[in-house]
Every structure is written in structure tokens, then in C-alpha cells.
């Protein structure tokens, strides 16, 4: 097992090299001269040249790349052009906000998705099933920025709540000070994921429920509950885990809209702001961090297969 994890870690190295090359290229592919942008408008040629020299932009590309990776490995991703602070510090401050948001959203997505999927599968082709799946289709099709705005309208601004329930009123912005700031963004981000997980769980469960060993379990005289949870669900979980992993990774990188709607200072907004202001080191840093996280999450998913499916011999 340890051997497998080590081998998988080694295998991520080529992926990470690919990622760093792409991220590094960003700086050189975007139109405009980075040094000029940093120097600001109206700066003298000398200033620009100085900056260029300082950033090593006159060195051959492979030297620049080597320096970039060397620094990155040591946790140095340069300094933000906008704020002048180290990129790593800026990301560090924002990272946990996004991580929390993604984490809670994943929990909500898994919880709602699994329940809906199991109910649908156990009662397949009934009215319940159809209803649940139509709701899931809604959850999937609804753009989450629109759903987020609706939630704000209903639960943060709307005046329909009686006075006595005012304490339940959600806050439409910010993160972390108050649970009332957490609920709406988590729901916004989690519902889409819940819908995907529900559909995945349903189809996977249906496939398993038709198997002979489920019939065997019933023939043993097991209760329906044990048949569904111990025999069917466990076997149906593998594709679901894959989706959950991808969802979580997606939430980490793709919470931009949700963060924007709810004015949450997370990684997503940091990235968008950096792109808008051409803060190259910051863009590189955020893209790199998100990519690395994605790789790590997928590694964890792969390893978890081992526990879910004894037949997958990872070695």
C-alpha cells in the first residue's frame, strides 16, 4: 500500500512538470510586455530595463523556467505586482476560505446526492423516482450564479420571515464570522454537485441491485436495509467516489462565481482579480496551487478505490 502511494506520488511528477510549463508559459504567451506593465505607464526605458533585469526576463527561457521551478519548490512564487506582497502569503490567506467553502459544499453535495440517489434507485420507476430525478435535473441545469441570487433574494433580503425567525435570516456576503454567511454559498455550490452525485448513485445502484448477489442477500433472509446499505451501496460507490473527488477539485478551482456573488475573498476571486489586473505572478501562483490540489485530490480518490474495491489490486 505504502509502495503504491509512493509510486503514485512519483507518477504525479510528470503531471506537475507539465503544469509548471503551462503556468510558466502564461507569462510569455499573454500579449504585452510584463516588465512594461509592472513598470506602469510612462515609465522610462531604463526603469523597464531594470525591471526586466531584476525579473530575469533577459535570461534564456530554460534558465527562467529553472529559476521559476526552483523557487516554486521552495514555496517562493514571487511577489504580487499589485500589492507587492509574496504571492504565497496572499494565497495562504485566501486558500482556507475556498477550501472550507469547497469542503462544506462537498459534504452537502454528497449528503443530498446519496440520499436522493438511493431513494430513487430503491423505488425506481415510481413517481418518487421520477420526482427526485426531475429535481436533480433542475439542480444540474440551473446556473449556480442564478440560484445563488435567488437564495439571496429569498433568505437574505426577502421580508417574508416573521419577526421571531429573523435570527435565521442569512447574510448575503462575507465568510467565516458567522454561520449565517456560510449556509447560502454552500447551498449554491453544493446543489449542482448533489444533482450529479444523485444521478450517478442512482444509475450505479440500479446496476448493482439487478445483480445476482443482491438476490443472494435477499435469499439469505437479510433485511432490506442491510441489503441496500451493506450489499448494494458499497458496491455502487466506486463511480460515485470518482465523481465526488472531481466535484471537490472542481469546487476548489471553480468557486469563482459563488465567491463573487457572495463577496467571499477566496482563491477564485483572487485569481479573477489577478487576471484582470495582469498580476502575472499571482495568476501563475493561483493556477499552480489549484492544479496541484487537483492532482492531490485525484490521487486520494485513486487510493480510496483500494478500500472500496478489493478486486482492484493497486500493486
Amino acid at each position: 500500500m505504502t509502495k503504491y502511494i509512493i509510486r503514485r506520488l512519483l507518477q504525479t511528477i510528470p503531471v506537475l512538470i507539465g503544469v509548471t510549463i503551462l503556468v510558466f508559459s502564461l507569462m510569455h504567451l499573454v500579449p504585452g510586455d510584463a516588465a512594461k506593465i509592472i513598470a506602469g505607464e510612462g515609465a522610462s526605458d531604463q526603469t523597464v530595463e531594470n525591471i526586466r533585469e531584476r525579473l530575469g526576463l533577459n535570461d534564456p527561457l530554460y534558465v527562467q523556467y529553472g529559476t521559476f521551478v526552483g523557487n516554486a519548490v521552495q514555496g517562493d512564487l514571487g511577489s504580487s505586482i499589485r500589492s507587492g506582497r509574496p504571492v504565497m502569503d496572499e494565497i495562504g490567506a485566501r486558500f482556507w476560505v475556498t477550501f472550507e467553502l469547497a469542503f462544506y459544499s462537498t459534504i452537502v453535495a454528497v449528503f443530498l446526492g446519496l440520499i436522493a440517489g438511493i431513494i430513487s434507485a430503491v423505488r425506481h420507476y415510481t413517481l418518487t423516482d421520477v420526482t427526485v430525478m426531475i429535481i436533480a435535473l433542475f439542480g444540474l441545469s440551473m446556473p449556480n450564479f442564478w440560484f445563488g441570487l435567488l437564495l439571496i433574494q429569498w433568505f437574505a433580503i426577502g421580508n417574508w420571515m416573521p419577526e421571531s425567525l429573523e435570527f435565521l435570516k442569512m447574510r448575503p456576503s462575507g465568510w467565516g464570522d458567522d454561520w449565517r454567511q456560510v449556509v447560502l454559498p454552500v447551498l449554491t455550490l453544493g446543489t449542482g454537485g448533489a444533482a450529479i452525485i444523485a444521478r450517478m448513485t442512482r444509475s450505479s445502484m440500479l446496476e448493482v441491485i439487478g445483480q445476482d448477489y443482491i438476490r443472494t442477500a435477499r435469499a439469505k433472509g437479510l433485511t432490506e436495509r442491510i441489503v441496500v446499505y451493506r450489499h448494494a451501496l458499497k458496491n455502487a460507490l466506486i463511480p460515485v467516489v470518482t465523481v465526488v473527488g472531481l466535484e471537490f477539485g472542481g469546487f476548489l478551482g471553480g468557486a469563482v462565481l459563488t465567491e463573487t456573488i457572495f463577496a467571499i475573498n477566496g482563491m477564485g476571486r483572487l485569481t479573477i482579480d489577478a487576471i484582470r489586473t495582469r498580476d502575472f505572478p499571482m495568476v501563475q501562483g493561483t493556477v499552480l496551487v489549484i492544479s496541484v490540489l487537483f492532482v492531490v485530490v485525484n490521487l486520494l480518490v485513486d487510493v480510496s478505490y483500494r478500500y472500496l474495491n478489493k478486486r482492484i489490486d493497486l500493486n
Partner: protein
Amino acid sequence: MAKQELLKVEGLKQYFPIKGGFLGRTVNHVKAVDDISFTIYEGETVSIVGESGCGKSTTGRSILRLEEPTEGKVEFQGVDLATISKRQMRDYRKDLQIIFQDPYASINPRQTVASVLNEAMEIQNVLPANKRRARIEELLETVGLLPYQADRFPHEFSGGQRQRIGIARALSVDPKLIICDEAVSALDVSIQAQVLNLLEDLQEQYNLTYLFISHDLGVVRHISDRIIVMYLGKIVEIADKHSLFENPQHPYTKALLSAIPVPDPDKKKERIVLKGDVPSPIDPPAGCRFHTRCPFATDKCRTEEPKLRTSDLMKEGHEAACHYMEEISAGAMQPNY
């Protein structure tokens, strides 16, 4: 010989609804098993044979209520299993076990052999927890596996070994009746023989009764005491093994028997080849269900359904459902191929 009734099936029907249309209304039924009755006595092996789709597997599942029977009685030692609650039925599952056809699909891939067997014993309260392990190892030895294999997963076994696990599982709760649903047809011939012999030994050892469901007449001939022939959800003939093979009465049984390959290239035998396909069980033919393919069919066959009955030519307990079995046997009717 005073035979003790163990299982008595009466008027069993199993219809599966066909849903259609926008709101999934039931538009029709597949009449998989349509009004069959038979009795199984203690200690014997009864086989159900017939071609694919004739309802033989469904019969087995309906008896165990793995499908809820549409109509009819399934009396096990005098208790009608078809009407008791699901909870009560769970207790009876101890006495009635099933071995499935596909040994690769019928064991949960995530359970070790020991936990497969243990779960069954636990739920049926067969043994106190501390004695189960010893019993599991004993069971594995009984079916020809080794005790140390108990903690392996199903994928570490071959098909024949897995079928033995299935048998051990069925045995683990000390059942009285085991339904073998094509239990050996997924195995190759040499393994089939081993498993069949094992089943016979176990029958003697534990005084088991088998309901053996198969399409393989060779296997059936080897293992059965009595044989039921089904066609399109109905029983067409029922007899002890000897009578059925030596003195078949129903034209369908005759056609079926003529299809058994004989391992002798010089022997010429008359092969009765039936025309056409089995009609759809959604809308089975009126009258005798076999009339669309029967070489002797008359107008009476097309309108009037034959009942199971006996004739002068048949031994006691031998019944067939054909209007003309006497005439056919006497050669008074010419087949119309």
C-alpha cells in the same frame, strides 16, 4: 413408501407488468408462470426443465418470494409462503435456500468467503457467534474447499470453487429445501460432474430436498427423481425420471428428448425439429400453448386448453397436458411437419 409432502405449489402465477406510456402505466403483463401446481416430497430431487423463457427460473424465485407471486399458494410444510408477511418469510428463508446459475455474479465481490457464510448464519441465528468460525471451516471442507481459504475474496477462486462457495452458503443455515437454479450450467463439463456428485452426497448427508432447475437434460437425467417439463409458463408433463425418458407422452417432451445429443456417430435417431420460435409470453396462444409448433395440432388444440391428466399408458404419478396423447402413442395421428 410413505412420502412426506415438503412443498406444495398450487395455481402459482407470476405476471410481470409491462410499463409503458408517459406515466408508466401498466399496459400488459408478461405471463412468465401461468397457473402451475406440483408437489415436492421430502428427500427427493425434482427437476424443472424447459427451454429459455419457459418460466422455470421464475418458478424458483416465486417460491422463495424473490419475486412476489401474482397468485397461488406455495405451501411449505403446511404454511402458505405466498401470504405470510415479509418478516415471517425471512424466518423461512432458513429452510429454503437457493444456488444461482452464475457463480461469478452471485457472490458479493466485497465480502470474504467467511463473511458471506457468517452473515447468513448470523441473520438466521444458526449458531452462537463463537462457534461460527469453526462451522465455516467445516462447511468449506464439506464442499471441497480448504479452511484457510475462508478469508479470501471471491475473485481469488475459480468458477467451480465459487459455485462450491454458493453451495456452502446455502448449506450454512441447515436448509430443508435447496433450489438449484441452473446451478451447474455455467461450469464446464468435468466441473459439472464434480458439483453434481457433491450435491448428491450432501443430499444423503443432510437429508436435503432439491428443486433442480435446468435446461440440460443430461444433467437432469443424472440427478432427478421426478421431472417437470414446462413450456411457456405451463407444466406440460410431469413424471418420474424413468417414465419421462422412456415413455414421454407430450409432443413437446418428445421433441425435447430427441434433442439430447447421443455420443455415438453411428446411431441414427429421429430428431423432431420444432418449427418457429416460442411465442411471446405477453400474449400466449389460446388453447394449448404448444399448438403453434405442435405437429399434431387440431382445431380443438387451438381453442381448448388441455389439463394435466393421466392415461392407461402411463404409470402412477405420470401426467401430461395433451388432448391427443393416446392417439399419438397409438400412431393414430400423423404428424404434420
